[in-house]
């Protein structure tokens, strides 16, 4: 089956092609079915591959599809790498992808772009699979940019709305900034090691100087920053919520945004060689985690809350990567994929029920109208808040333990982040599902639980969110950390934890207690006191205003990047190009004309002058040649 790994991306590609070419002629159900089946087929193959690899002796198998780019020493085949890391991600992508495809059948049913949506979605899955399957950095980059494209297409799915289009453009451009870093990283890898195939490169790393490795690691990390929405390239992600909700769930929560983590894990050898780069990754991750979490506190759009939460969680994962806890990061990717997809899908269900309304100030008391949604979302919220024994608890705890080992200060940031997370998540839950309904009558009239195609994925994901923790039970509890073992062959593992068990217990206890305390505080605030987010921005206090407006980062970027670039461009165009350069060119022409006008005057028409000129000419010539 491993030899047939090419089938995994092939199925979604076929789905894409069918829907792309014939989507309009097919009925909605057929079109959706094709998309779902193609992903399901991939999932099945993935599972088979996963199983086979699990038993195989060779944990890293290369499958070459065709020769792609050849240029002297630069040989880049289009080939896939099947190893524990890629298969793990294959499962997440195809699995969650399949659920979301199902969900979308219901969610997008009324949309006129139904088949187009599935076309894009299949294309996304295809590229995402390429990303994780690629055997070299360039194939990875293909997937990398490809998912960026799909993200662009899906954010701007409702292309009649120009603000959505702007968000899509923003996402694409910001990703491209990261991609440039990635690309430069690839170049550096190529010039240093003469190859960009993973195994070849990793085999030679030790020969390279630390400086080069740091440079490579940082350049690659720039790519990750873009894709995984880290400071300073995170602002596109909240805007990306313009896309349909399943997209937010699949792309902007579960899979694409974790590509950065995948890449760092894949290249972990560089990071483990370079302390500087690791430290940098950790700090960026920590800052992002905290920063995004604070913004999340005051958001009123249900999807925006989740978006910032995603950014924050991604920050947490990078923090893990920075401290060398690669498998913990993958673990958190996995659990995060479960509960964040769940939360987004739940939110989608709410929005669906509310007729498109996304503002939590207009919701409230939906618990009764949407029981399944409520239940599943509630489980997801608990999971993300890190309460045991939900999956989030295990993954987050594992990370925090490793962070503590590395630096207590960062650990404190992590804990703070998870407290904030618990707070705003419960804030969202309380405001949405409890209390009284604050929307219009019409909305209230239309409130209803979503169809099966929506609820079933919710339930599945809820189960996974709850039980996902078993994949990585803490070692000091005496369990085998499944993920850790699984990824053993691809990861430079830190030495097993040397912390005393009681310290670990204490840390775990602290985080749980703090989370519970925060939830209680939220409960007090929103349930007991019924505090509502203010309607009008003017009523906010100044610090709140700052946070509410996301620290004015967008405005800041606008002022220091977009406007100057536009200004410079205009100056280049209007002044430099037209006036200076073309001015010089045209100036040559007009100068010729001008001189011509002058020289013409010399031809006076007076013969006396001509004669004089001639005689003068004779004099000058005689003088210069003979009077030396």
């Amino acid at each position, binding site marked *: 089956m491993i030899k047939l790994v090419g089938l995994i991306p092939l199925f979604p590609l076929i789905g894409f092609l069918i829907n792309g070419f014939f989507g309009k002629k097919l009925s909605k159900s057929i079109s959706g079915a094709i998309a779902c089946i193609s992903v399901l087929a991939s999932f099945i193959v993935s599972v088979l591959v996963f199983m086979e690899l699990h038993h195989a002796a060779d944990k890293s198998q290369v499958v070459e599809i065709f020769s792609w780019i050849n240029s002297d020493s630069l040989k880049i085949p289009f080939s896939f790498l099947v190893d524990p890391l890629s298969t793990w991600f294959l499962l997440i992508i195809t699995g969650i992808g399949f659920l979301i495809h199902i969900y979308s059948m219901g969610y997008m049913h009324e949309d006129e772009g139904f088949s187009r949506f599935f076309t894009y979605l299949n294309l996304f899955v295809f590229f995402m699979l390429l990303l994780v399957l690629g055997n070299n950095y360039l194939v990875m980059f293909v997937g990398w940019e490809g998912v960026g494209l799909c993200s662009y297409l899906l954010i701007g799915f409702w292309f009649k709305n120009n603000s959505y289009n702007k968000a899509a453009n923003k996402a694409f451009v910001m990703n491209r900034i990261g991609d440039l870093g990635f690309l430069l990283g690839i170049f550096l890898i190529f010039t240093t090691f003469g190859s960009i195939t993973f195994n070849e490169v990793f085999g030679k790393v030790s020969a390279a100087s630390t400086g080069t490795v740091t440079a490579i690691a940082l350049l690659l990390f720039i790519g990750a920053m873009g894709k995984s929405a880290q400071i300073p390239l995170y602002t596109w992600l909240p805007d990306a919520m313009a896309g349909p909700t399943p997209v937010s769930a699949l792309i902007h929560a579960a899979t694409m945004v974790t590509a950065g983590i995948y890449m760092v894990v894949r290249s972990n050898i560089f990071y483990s060689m370079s302390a500087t780069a690791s430290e940098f990754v950790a700090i960026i991750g920590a800052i992002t985690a905290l920063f995004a979490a604070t913004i999340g506190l005051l958001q009123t759009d249900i999807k925006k809350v989740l978006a910032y939460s995603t950014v924050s969680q991604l920050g947490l994962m990078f923090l893990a990567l920075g401290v060398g806890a690669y498998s913990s990061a993958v673990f958190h990717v996995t659990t995060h994929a479960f509960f964040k997809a769940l939360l987004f899908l739940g939110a989608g269900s709410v929005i669906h029920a509310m007729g498109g309304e996304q503002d939590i100030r207009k919701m409230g008391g939906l618990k009764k109208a949407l029981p399944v949604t409520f239940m599943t979302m509630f489980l997801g919220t608990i999971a993300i808040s890190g309460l045991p024994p939900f999956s989030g608890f295990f993954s987050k705890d594992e990370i925090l333990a490793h962070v503590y080992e590395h630096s207590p200060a960062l650990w404190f940031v992590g804990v703070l982040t998870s407290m904030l997370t618990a707070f705003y998540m419960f804030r969202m839950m309380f405001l949405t599902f409890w209390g009284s309904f604050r929307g219009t009558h019409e909305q209230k009239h239309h409130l209803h639980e979503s169809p099966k195609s929506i609820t079933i994925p919710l339930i599945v994901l809820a189960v996974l969110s709850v039980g996902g923790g078993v994949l990585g039970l803490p070692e000091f509890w005496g369990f085998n950390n499944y993920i850790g073992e699984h990824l053993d062959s691809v990861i430079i593992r830190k030495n097993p934890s040397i912390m005393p068990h009681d310290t670990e217990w204490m840390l775990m206890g602290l985080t749980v207690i703090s989370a519970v305390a925060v939830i209680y505080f939220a409960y007090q605030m929103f349930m007991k006191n019924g505090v509502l987010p203010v309607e009008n921005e003017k009523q906010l206090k100044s610090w709140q205003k700052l946070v509410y407006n996301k620290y004015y980062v967008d405005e800041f970027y606008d002022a220091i990047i977009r406007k100057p670039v536009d200004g410079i461009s205009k100056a280049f165009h209007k002044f430099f190009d037209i006036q200076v350069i073309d001015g010089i060119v045209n100036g040559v022409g007009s100068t010729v004309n001008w001189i011509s006008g002058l020289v*013409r005057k010399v*031809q*006076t*028409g007076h*013969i*006396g002058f001509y*004669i004089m000129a001639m*005689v003068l000419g004779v004099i000058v010539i005689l003088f210069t040649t003979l009077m030396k």
Partner: protein
Amino acid sequence: MINGIPINYYILLSAILFIIGAVGVMARRNAIIIFMCIELMLNAVNLLLVAFSTLHNDANGQVFVFFVMAVAAAEVAVGLAILSMVYRNIKSIDIDLLSKLKN
């Protein structure tokens, strides 16, 4: 030294006459006088040729003078014909009036 006179003197003399002619061409507006000045220049050349002819004791120089004379005569004939035609048209032989063609 020709008959006791250095050749340089002849060269100088004809140069002076030549230049007088040239100055005349430059300084006068009357076309006829300009023609005359050109004749003067040609004569200066003739004188030089004869002087060199004697110096080299070679008849070619003097024969050449004949041709110069023939040409001078021809030029004068044509020149005066043109002049009279110009005069017929503009009733003047002032060369400064003939400056329609310019720039």
